[in-house]
């Protein structure tokens, strides 16, 4: 168990956290406005769009991995960005995984807000972005739940992290790719230990989100 209590384990946690945090920030920054837009007004194909986002929540992470690999490989269109096997590449994959989940759950949360709130703000002449912000504040429980669910999805996924990060030691080795690697090496104890650590970190983050929900009331 010496391998477990080491600076390397800390570093692996940090890589996991920063990758998923960046992905969640990006996916929220993109997803919440899209959710606001598609819940705010009626337009042709709105139902189809929402159904599409609901379906994409089941996007397999390995598929996202191979898709992005085929774009980010040095011999591929975006190869010159030199992103493959870096943590931003993993983040990008996780952003794609988190985005539909955030949109889908936020749309549901925003649709639950009272229609009179929108009317009050329209009557007030509040600008579009400001109105969006107020709606998000009103629906913050649901929207934060969407963010938490998306975080859970990307923090624990292994498929795209492995394909896009390459499990490079001291660089792109995350908690999940380490668990996969240690387990394949037969180090079940280490795999289990890291699994529990991952759960612990997820728990801490959920408590943080919960306190945030409480704090804003």
């Amino acid at each position: 168990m010496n391998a477990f209590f080491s600076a390397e384990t800390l570093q692996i946690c940090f890589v996991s956290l920063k990758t998923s945090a960046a992905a969640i920030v990006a996916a929220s920054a993109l997803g919440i406005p899209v959710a606001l837009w598609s819940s705010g007004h009626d337009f042709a194909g709105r139902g189809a769009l929402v159904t599409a986002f609901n379906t994409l929540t089941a996007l397999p992470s390995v598929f996202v991995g191979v898709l992005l690999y085929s774009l980010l490989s040095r011999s591929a269109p975006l190869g010159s960005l030199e992103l493959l096997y870096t943590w931003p590449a993993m983040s990008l994959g996780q952003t794609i995984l988190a985005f539909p989940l955030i949109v889908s759950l936020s749309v549901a949360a925003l649709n639950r807000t009272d229609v009179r709130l929108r009317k009050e703000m329209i009557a007030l002449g509040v600008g579009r972005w400001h109105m969006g912000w107020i709606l998000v504040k009103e629906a913050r429980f649901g929207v934060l739940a969407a963010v938490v669910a998306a975080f859970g999805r990307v923090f624990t996924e292994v498929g795209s992290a492995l394909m896009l990060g390459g499990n490079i030691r001291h660089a792109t080795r995350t908690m999940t790719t380490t668990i996969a690697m240690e387990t394949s090496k037969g180090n079940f104890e280490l795999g289990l230990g890291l699994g529990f650590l991952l759960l612990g970190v997820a728990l801490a983050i959920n408590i943080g989100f919960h306190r945030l929900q409480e704090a804003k009331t």
Partner: protein
Amino acid sequence: MRLNGMRFYRVSVVAGLVLVAQLFCASASAQTLRLATTTSTDNSGLLEFLLPGFERQCGCRVDVIAVGTGKALRLGENGDVDVLLVHDPLREKAFVEAGHGRYRRYVMYNDFVLLGPAEDPAGVRKSRNAAAAFSAIAGARAVFVSRGDESGTHAKEKSMWRAASVAPGGDWYRETGQGMGATIQVADQMRGYTLADRGTFLAMRDKLGLQILLSGDPRLHNPYGVIPVLNKAISQQGATLAQSFAAWITGADAQSRIASFKKYGQVLFHPAGGKGLPPRADDDS
């Protein structure tokens, strides 16, 4: 409550700054050499033991991507890695001939071993050689667990079936599509046979019921080669580093380090001195 909001705000700002700083670090990374290699070399701890020497010498960082030989060759073809350390001589030769690699140098070797349950239902222990052992397994329809992942080990296994004149298939032949460690575990759980590299088996030996039933056949020789990748997508710097890596790992220093690397009281890899081809032309000849 307002205080909480403020504190949250400050924490987010700091976290955001850290992320942005990290992003810049990632884009402005120092010299790195990207090495694709097999899980067997990485999992054994050999690279961890060797690479710091090279990193000191070149003042660079080596990023190791441990995958099967098949995938490593594909990554090389796409120019996603700068140098390969793999173990499938036939495909390595084809890779260089197709213009994807500058050259191939022979780095080291170890051997494959045939693993199976102690009770040995197919009677592999009594076989004269490896080919006879494989045909005994097929004849007994005893469970055989294959990597099935186009790795170097899988290629070796397929060549053994050819040597035994058997086309494996049927419910006794199970393909995992996973790495060496995972495949050994599956074989252990199924009490089946499998072909494994000695290093990975030794690393897991204490946790397994499987035993080495056959080894030492020259056909089970497992040579590792180094290939600097030739691809216009690779930077000048990467190409230069790749060549100095190939020269270094076949040089006297690294070779004696390889010979001194012991685990479980055994030498896992034997240095081969950088000759162009393995001493014995591989199977299928």
